[in-house]
């Protein structure tokens, strides 16, 4: 049992998402940083889809009744275990009666805590991910609160050695981001000049950046006055409403909306959207689909290599 002493700013239970129900308007939800969550589950000896905690801006304080293998990945929230600082992107053993405390974020924005076996909550429509807007998944469909008690689950692989890995696997978070996009499906609604403006300007992440949407401040894009019929919109879509400020669609966003989509963030860059802070700068850089797929394959191959190095006990 893990007791929540302090929940942190916006802490939810998430897994790899509630796929399969978008036809009925159910957003996918799930962890916003796919890379950090994959690595955290590896380090904690978990199956890929084990549920973990996602913390935003400021993490929580947790009391552990029993000893358990745990791992932290993603943003650095200056975690301490019984008062001693512990490293990010590493596995560690929490002793029985231990207190794991997170503070304010100092690098990146979202941090992930995985425990061996994952967190046991009821699966709703195939996922344990919290979707706060509909009050489903996670713990009663809501943010964690002080006093909540979390049970450990059974999503563990064979018990693994506690090993770290080379720093080259650890992404660097900055305040100035280059994010690759593929133009389309509705880029044709924008003039060439507007497309150029979008790709050559610096956008600032607004204060409205949550699990639904990441709003941007920067040059306004003009759209011809057309009433667009609602269509499907996915994670990473760059939508442009009538007022012309583009925003980025996140996994708790509605599944269909009537906004023009000038482009999509590539899959290999989705993790950046989890780690940008309000006020950070973003430059969007166009690449073609083939290159995007190559980057994604490389990322997945790296993950596989890491997974294999863990199961053989060879430092990677």
């Amino acid at each position, binding site marked *: 049992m893990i007791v929540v002493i302090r929940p942190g700013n916006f802490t939810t239970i998430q897994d790899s998402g509630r796929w399969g129900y978008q036809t009925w308007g*159910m957003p996918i939800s799930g962890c916003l940083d796919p890379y950090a969550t994959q690595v955290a589950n590896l380090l904690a000896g978990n199956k890929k889809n084990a549920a973990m905690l996602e913390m935003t801006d400021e993490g929580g304080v947790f009391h552990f009744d029993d000893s358990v293998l745990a791992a932290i990945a993603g943003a650095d929230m200056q975690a301490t275990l019984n008062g001693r600082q512990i490293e990010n992107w590493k596995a560690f053993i929490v002793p029985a009666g231990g207190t794991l405390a997170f503070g304010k974020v100092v690098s990146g924005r979202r941090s992930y805590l995985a425990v061996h076996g994952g967190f046991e909550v009821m699966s709703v429509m195939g996922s344990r991910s919290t979707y706060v*807007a509909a009050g489903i998944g996670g713990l009663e469909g809501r943010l964690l609160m002080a006093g909540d008690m979390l049970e450990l689950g059974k999503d563990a692989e064979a018990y693994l050695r506690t090993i770290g890995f080379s720093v080259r696997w650890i992404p660097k978070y900055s305040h100035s981001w280059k994010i690759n996009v*593929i133009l389309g499906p509705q880029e044709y609604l924008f003039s060439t000049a507007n497309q150029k403006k979008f790709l050559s300007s610096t956008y600032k992440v607004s204060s409205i950046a949550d699990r639904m949407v990441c709003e941007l401040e920067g040059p306004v894009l003009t759209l011809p006055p057309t009433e667009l019929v609602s269509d499907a919109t996915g994670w990473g879509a760059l939508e442009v409403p009538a007022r012309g400020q583009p925003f980025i669609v996140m996994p708790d966003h509605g599944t269909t909306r009537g906004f023009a989509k000038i482009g999509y*963030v590539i899959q290999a860059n989705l993790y950046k959207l989890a780690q940008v802070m309000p006020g950070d700068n973003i430059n969007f850089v166009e690449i073609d689909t083939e290159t995007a797929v190559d980057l*994604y394959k490389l990322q997945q191959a790296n993950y596989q290599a890491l997974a294999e190095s863990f199961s053989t006990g060879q430092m990677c």
Partner: protein
Amino acid sequence: MLMKNAAARAKLQPAGDGGLVVVFGDKIAPGVHEQVQEFVNSLQKMQINAVREIVPSYCSVMIYYDVLQVSGKELRSLVLEALEKLEPVSASLSKILHVPVCYDGVLAPDMDCVLRMTGMTKKELLDILTSKPHLVYLTGFTPGFPYMGNLPFSVSRQALSRRAIPPGSVGIAGNQTGIYTVVSPGEWNIIGRTPLKIFDAGRDNPFLLTAGDYVQFEIIDIGQYFALKRQIENKYYQT
């Protein structure tokens, strides 16, 4: 011949490196809706492992796929194959859901505004809304929210977005009508509320409606609204 034309006219557009959109038109129309449904049916029958999810909307179909299992080029040729094999979707699969709605007082905050915009009397408006079943073109926005289109009139949205529209609220915007399913922000004109839970994650079937179904609105008064709401909360009510 008609099918072949549909296939030839469909446009394929990328949505990032893990999505492909198949576009059949740009207007809300029953004919386009049929093509969308037929294509979804045809693609589902092919049982392509690499397809993570198929999401239809008014005029297009989004295909989310796993690029580790299929290349964009391979997927495109599978889509063309599916387009060649469109066949009518059996109408027997669609159902009519009777949706009781109270169109009065605090449950209908924008009723007066809609009557002003349309120049209709309340009776005229309700006659149009309840005279025949409405086709559900798609469910989306929030879980289970049914989009019904092609009203014979059109109204603009509320200028200011409401922060929290209660579930069950019946809204109209443009020539569409829909039912809010969870507390959500919105700009649609709210003209009534149903006690039915169109979406309930705790139910065996969380969604009462799916694309292709029909909704028949029925007028109830505020007393009936609260009586039904109690029955539904106590799980006595059968739709």
